[in-house]
């Protein structure tokens, strides 16, 4: 396993980190592993009938038998596999195809402008928007009706919540492709792509072929972990599946959630079994993926060694670029659709725009929205600030100790992203309930931290590690303490990545549905829980208001991060410095 850093990590003279700094990695790991491990235990035991609080005092296979007796279980499992695997495979192919098509170029201003809001928009908001768009009465059909389709009434077609999960897969693609693209571009920026492509071109290789043969084999190990995170997420997603997925039967994670929240508490036991099955599905899929990697790797080696310069893949990579552009357009249109619905009074099929506009939904929601908005922002700010402090502590510790970043620790960091949320959140809730923390902001912040820290780490580690070490060394030689170097040199130089990482943390926190639901005991209400609740409740105008706000808050955070860093960027600290 290679870690995504190419700069030599041993950057500063070795020294003994202070007491507090030494605690940073320990605290981080403790914050992570305790809830995940306890949460898993709290799921595994009830899955075999052991939960004394509910009268389960001996181990039994009854929960599994109950699970097996559920009508439609087979379909639910098949659906889970189909949507999760398809979304991941297609995402990877599209992203790699696009990068091969670009072969070393960077996305332009327009591309960034389209994908930034899609990346920032939470999954739930995007699912709601995509649902609006592709419904039988949605914008796409309206644009084509009745002049092309002849439909004066929406067709009776299951384009949303379809039994095969196509809509869910599409929704996942809209969100996961930009994410994977971002991770790939980050990894690419650390490879000497241009030089190698020039060499390949000199040898007569087609551009996309050269990219696939030379860049991809070195790129892939670096995007493997984010890719597994996408796979695990797509297999176990709940909020998107609730909004876009079928309900009869739903995917396995939704089924588990349905039982966890059933009035009949005896359903906890099969729910725990379903959650455990979900975990097995994710682990099995990752194993399957690894096997697939081996096969592709073996075939790829033969292809590379064949020395062929051209390939029929060339037009396919252009197709991938077109499809990604289409997904970007779909995502942007989905967000626009949210805005239009939030301002709609009446909008009957097949009109392309509402016949009556009204700001009533916004006006009515002002009073209702303040509390969830305040909670959302508080939780996100605290979680993101804590995450930045912890991650900076870990990175600084690593540099001061002069140790190479450990692949092992990176895997640890990924644990919350690879283990399905439903598999440990219930157990974690039991833990929180016993410690009297459930339903408090603290519990919600903690549960968010599990997901915020990995993303903040991913976004901060590379810029931090690749900062030119001579600044720090010079300062140390001039007699500055490591603390002073950290505060006066490194932080100001890296202000921009730190702020961007904080904004990423904020966006990840706002995205969390299930952790808020479980740790908050339903009592901590955020824009996300409101939006998902409303989406199932159907009030499209109000849903539009909440989903739009949910997407705007992280976007505003990115804007602030970029604005502030531009104002107080490295140039103000060290003239001529490039961070």
């Amino acid at each position, binding site marked *: 396993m290679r870690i995504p850093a190419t700069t030599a990590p041993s950057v500063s003279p070795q020294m003994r980190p202070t007491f507090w700094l030494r605690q940073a990695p320990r605290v981080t790991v403790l914050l992570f592993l305790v809830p995940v491990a306890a949460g898993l235990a709290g799921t595994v035991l009830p899955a075999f009938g052991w*939960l004394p609080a509910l009268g389960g005092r001996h181990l039994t296979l009854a929960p599994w038998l109950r699970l097996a007796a559920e009508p439609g279980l087979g379909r639910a499992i098949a659906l889970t596999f189909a949507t999760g695997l398809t979304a991941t495979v297609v995402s990877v192919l599209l992203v790699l195809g696009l990068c091969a098509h670009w072969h070393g170029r960077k996305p332009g201003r327009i591309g960034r402008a389209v994908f930034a809001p899609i990346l920032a928009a939470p999954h739930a908001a995007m699912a709601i928007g995509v649902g609006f768009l592709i419904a039988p009465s949605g914008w796409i059909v309206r644009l084509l009706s009745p002049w092309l389709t002849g439909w004066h009434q929406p067709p009776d077609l*299951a384009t949303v919540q379809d039994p095969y999960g196509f809509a869910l897969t599409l929704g996942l693609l809209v969100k996961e492709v930009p994410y994977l693209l971002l991770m790939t571009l980050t990894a690419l920026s650390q490879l000497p792509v241009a030089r190698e492509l020039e060499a390949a071109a000199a040898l007569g290789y087609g551009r996309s072929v050269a990219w696939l043969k030379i860049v991809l084999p070195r790129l892939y190990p670096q995007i493997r972990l984010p890719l597994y995170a996408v796979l695990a997420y797509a297999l176990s997603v709940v909020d998107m599946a609730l909004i876009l997925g079928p309900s009869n039967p739903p995917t396995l994670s939704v089924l588990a959630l349905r039982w966890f*929240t059933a009035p009949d508490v005896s359903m906890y036991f099969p729910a725990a079994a379903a959650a455990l099955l979900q975990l097995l599905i994710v682990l099995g899929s990752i194993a399957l993926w690894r096997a697939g990697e081996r096969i592709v790797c073996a075939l790829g080696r033969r292809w590379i060694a064949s020395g062929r310069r051209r390939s029929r893949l060339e037009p396919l990579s252009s197709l991938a670029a077109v499809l990604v552009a289409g997904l970007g357009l779909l995502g942007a249109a989905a967000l626009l659709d949210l805005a239009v619905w939030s301002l709609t009074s009446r909008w009957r*099929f097949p009109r392309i725009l509402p016949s009556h506009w009204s700001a009533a939904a916004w006006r009515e929601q002002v009073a209702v929205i303040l509390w969830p908005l305040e909670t959302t922002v508080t939780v996100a700010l605290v979680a993101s600030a804590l995450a930045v402090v912890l991650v900076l502590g870990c990175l600084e510790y690593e540099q001061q100790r002069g140790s190479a970043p450990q692949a092992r620790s990176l895997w640890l960091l990924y644990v919350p992203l690879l283990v399905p949320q439903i598999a440990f959140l219930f157990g974690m809730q039991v833990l929180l309930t016993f410690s009297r923390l459930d339903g408090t902001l603290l519990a919600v912040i903690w549960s968010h931290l599990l997901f915020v820290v990995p993303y903040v780490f991913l976004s901060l580690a590379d810029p931090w590690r690749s900062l030119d070490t001579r600044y720090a060394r010079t300062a140390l030689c001039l007699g500055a303490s490591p603390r002073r170097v950290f505060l006066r040199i490194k932080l100001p130089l890296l202000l921009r990545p730190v702020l961007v990482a904080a904004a990423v943390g904020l966006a990840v926190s706002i995205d969390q549905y299930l952790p808020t639901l479980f740790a908050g005991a*339903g*009592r901590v209400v955020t824009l996300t829980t409101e939006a998902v609740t409303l989406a199932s409740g159907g009030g499209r105008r109000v849903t539009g208001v909440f989903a739009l706000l949910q997407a705007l808050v992280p976007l505003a955070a990115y804007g602030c991060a970029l604005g502030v860093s531009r104002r107080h960027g490295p140039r103000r600290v060290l003239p001529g410095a490039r961070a």
Partner: protein
Amino acid sequence: MAAAGALVLALCLLVPVRARAAPWQQVLHQARGETVYFDAWAGDQRVNSFIAWVARQVAACCDVTLRQVPLEDTSAAVTQVIAEKAAGDNAEGTVDLIWINGPNFYALKRRGLLYGPFTQQLPNAALLDVRDRANRFDFTVPVDGYESPWRKAQLVFIYDSAYLKHVPHGIRAFPAWAKRHPGRFTFPQVQNFLGVAFLEQALYALTPDPAVLQRPATPAIFDKATAPLWAWLDQLRPYLWRGGREFPVSGPAERQLLEDGEIDLMPSFNPTEAAADVAAGRLPRTVRSYVLTHGTLGNTSFVAIPYNSPHKAGAMVVANFLLSPRAQARAGNIHYLGGPTVLDLKRLTGSERARFAALPHSPWMPSDRALRRVLPEPHPSWASRLAAAFEQRYTP
């Protein structure tokens, strides 16, 4: 855990005694400064706005902060209380008040997880219409003072008269109607209360002896009673929206389908829904709602207080306010919520009665006479059995 169980038992035994001991002034005093977490289904924006209004009123009059915990499904609150009991959290629960009725009330009451009886302490409970059976028996389960009414609901059907000339006026007419209008009718999924309510309505019309529905459903009785329902459903289902393979998740989701023109006819458990939507400009003025010829199921919405709520006084203040003529008149006003009151107008003062007389009438609501054709809800066990049997039969 045994100790916790004993404690719960002790609390349950203690509560009635304590409840009777506290006079209302003391409750009001105790409620000052309390924050009441009100777990309420949040799928209807008008109800959310009404609750926000209630919050402003109780803050002004009684210094009680009311916070709606928006639920997707009331069962989430039930689960929460049960989970808290399981964790031994007997005094510091997170739920103070639940909008509840039917199976969810039964689930909590049966386990002794509700505070009460508390309703006779509420001064405004004296104004309640006790002749209305639905105010005393919630889905056949005696209320016994463990929940306080605040609203009435009844099954109606909504359609757009501009698109639809003929509608089915009886359950037996549905299959033939649907065959003529394929894909234009559906009901919410059976996990949703409205979906089950539609099945119960059909069962009421089709089963040989509707009286059995008032008793708990045993497997033998259930199979015999529901046989005609399944035969009827087998005829109807192929002509439903999406061929009866998928169902909308809830009533509001189905209303969106009606608005989008995906369907022409929908059930609703809120007789004022169409009127409210016309008033808000969401549905055209050609929309109509009606009650079936032989009547439809109706019930009362209640609020209940979990046994481990730390803010029982505040919750009682809210329950009492919901029963006040002022709140009831606001709830009865079609501009805000609309629908019949749970109060007995004869028990009100002249000026209070005038509030109700002055309420605007809406041509988009079923007539008052139609709304008097109310059928009692079956015992809660029927709903869960119907949902399970439906899933068993119709999950692909």
